[in-house]
């Protein structure tokens, strides 16, 4: 990793582009506007397709569906900006929520159980942080291991049982509204924390160090920045936020099963990357990530109203994720070349590729229709 980091350092001419922006308005750059445009487009399309889309109560309920993802996304933005990743967040969430459920089933006071769960989640984050920052194992490998480990502990805690019957005061965190308005508590919490995380990222030395680590870890280390400690802190933070998200999800469901939140890590990473956070590190804004979260939320809500299955919605989200990187890249290539020359051979290759995919889809629909019609 070390040797590689040196060779991969980005050209100095582009450093200014990665550095934290000076004013909040200036940070509202191309990608964020693009997301705003997509959100508006999505709203317009949905209003035309479904009369229930603008229903305030619907919107309020659906917004709380995404807050667990959002809470885990905030520290994930930090981690991805340093060029690392945390695949274990959803498992950590399951472990913490299950621990609270276990303690609750054993008759422990719910608030004590909740604090214990937060501590366990934080400990899980510290384990990741220790292995990544001190033992210097690749983040992908470490968090892949803890992905299985934490989820396994969740199953160990609860087995095939579920924890139920949380007191009303606790379920408020997942289901309650602030001051009897339509604003769910979890959304209010997310907004406050998002602003806090955004300020830390864009307004403090700590945030600046995160970009520095993502751009050139070795250079940052030699500048006297405590790189290992910073990495340890952000992974610990990620563990804490995962546990918090777990508590809120448990409060929203009113029960906990060990498989709670399975697969959410991909939704978290998708939101961050769609928000313009560079998976290679060094680039991205909190605002972009939050906007992307809202875009995904609105799209899923709109498709849900149209009775599109959750898994099929994944096709659209997946395409959006790929296109969000593909289109700017292609646009850049086209503008660099100033008019594409099409060679005979590459045109032939493109034709072959198109034909192969066409045959694939013809087969896809043909075989599907044959069986579904035949029963």
């Amino acid at each position, binding site marked *: *990793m*070390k*040797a*590689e980091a040196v*060779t991969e350092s980005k050209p100095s001419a582009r450093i200014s582009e990665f550095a934290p922006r000076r004013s909040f308005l200036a940070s509202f750059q191309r990608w964020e506007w693009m997301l705003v445009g997509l959100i508006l487009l999505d709203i317009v399309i949905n209003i035309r397709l479904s009369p229930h889309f603008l229903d305030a109560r619907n919107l309020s309920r659906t917004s709380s569906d995404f807050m667990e993802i959002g809470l885990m996304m905030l520290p994930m933005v930090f981690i991805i900006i340093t060029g690392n*990743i945390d*695949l274990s967040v959803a498992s950590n969430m399951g472990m913490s929520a299950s621990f609270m459920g276990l303690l609750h089933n054993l008759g422990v006071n719910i608030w004590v159980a909740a604090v214990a769960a937060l501590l366990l989640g934080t400990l899980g984050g510290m384990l990741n942080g220790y*292995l990544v920052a001190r*033992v*210097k*194992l*690749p983040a*992908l*490998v*470490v968090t*892949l*291991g803890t*992905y*299985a*480990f934490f*989820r*396994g*502990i969740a*199953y*160990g805690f*609860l*087995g095939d049982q579920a924890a139920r019957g949380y007191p009303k005061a606790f379920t408020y965190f997942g289901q309650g509204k602030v001051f009897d308005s339509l604003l769910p508590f979890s959304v209010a919490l997310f907004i406050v924390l998002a602003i806090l995380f955004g300020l830390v990222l864009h307004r403090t030395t700590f945030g600046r160090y995160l970009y520095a680590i993502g751009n050139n870890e070795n250079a940052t280390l030699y500048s006297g920045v405590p790189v290992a400690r910073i990495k340890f802190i952000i992974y610990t933070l990620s563990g804490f936020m995962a546990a918090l998200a777990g508590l809120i999800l448990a409060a929203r469901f009113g029960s906990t099963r*060990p498989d709670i939140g399975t697969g959410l890590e*991909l939704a978290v*990473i*998708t939101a961050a*990357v769609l928000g313009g956070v560079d*998976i*290679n590190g060094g680039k991205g804004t909190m605002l972009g990530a939050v906007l992307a979260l809202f875009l995904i939320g609105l799209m899923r809500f709109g498709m849900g109203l149209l009775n599109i*299955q959750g*898994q*099929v919605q*994944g*096709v*659209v*989200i*997946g*395409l959006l*994720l*790929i296109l969000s*990187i*593909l289109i700017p*890249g292609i646009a850049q*290539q086209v503008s660099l070349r100033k008019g594409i020359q099409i060679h005979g051979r590459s045109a032939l290759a493109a034709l072959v*590729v198109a034909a*192969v*995919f066409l045959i*694939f889809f013809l*087969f*896809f629909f043909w*075989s*599907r229709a044959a*069986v*579904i019609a*035949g029963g």
Partner: protein
Amino acid sequence: MTVQNPPAIQTSVSRNGLLWTLIRFREAGISLFILLLVVAVTLRAPSFLTVDNFQDILLNISILAIVALAQTMVIITHGIDLSVSSMIGLVAMMVAFVVKQYPEMPVILPVLLGMALGAVLGSFNGLIITFGKVPPIIATLGTLSIYRGLVFFYSQGTWINSFELPASFKLLSKGTPLGLPNMVIIALFVAVIVYYFLNYTRTGRDIFAVGSNPDAAQFAGIRKQRITFLVYLISGLLSGLAAVLWVSRFESAQTNTALGFELQTVAASVVGGVSISGGVGTVSGVLLGALLLGIIQNSLTLIRISPFWQLAAQGLLILIAVISDKWILSRVERTKT
């Protein structure tokens, strides 16, 4: 890790370099780990060390080994293919639909069909990664949910049951005309081909070159794009093969077939000593990695660890394997330099 990348280039030229001995040593490490585990489990549960049980383990890890080998080739180029599980799910469903519709067709046809379908899906990954310049982790994260969504769209939420599949197709994976179950033989066959391909063909060596130093590889005249495209295509092809075996083995195709399997394949590769930063990996290491995962799974049941704690124990053992590997490696580096 520190001196891993530079010598990797040497190995693609001569296999007597520092790295080669390191790799040897790495496999010694995991072999030792497996041996210790076998001894410890046998002491607790003597039924572990029987031919039947080992045949069972081999049957369980065959599919994992096939896909892990594909994953290894991708990781060697410093990429990752997270979509393997969804490719298996989609191809499994499509092949099962076709087999249900035409039960009398010879068994080789669904195998070829599965591989072809997988290759198409894999080449889609390859296209967006090479020509679209989308980072592999993003591209395959996207296709992970796209392909899985297509499974739901394709099947309309239905699934294929055991009684809808012909007996000959079910025997494809489990039949033992050659002494061992067919599936194990297919996995070994794939391993031999991948071993030959990676070590004795020009394209295979190019895969290592691209992974250890992409720029140098490009300057050396290696078509980086083509190699990258190829590994994702192979990954799809082998996932397609795995999908057919999966349907045959478990006698069903469901919308959640192989859900989460991608992480197991990455785990088998990494535990087997494949470096996530590219350029390093061996077929024997990956096979040992898959074997280790299989033995862990099998032995946890035998020594009566509650099924609910098994996943935790698996995760912990993966972590221990990776940490001890790193520890051994840093020791070796210290003695060598």
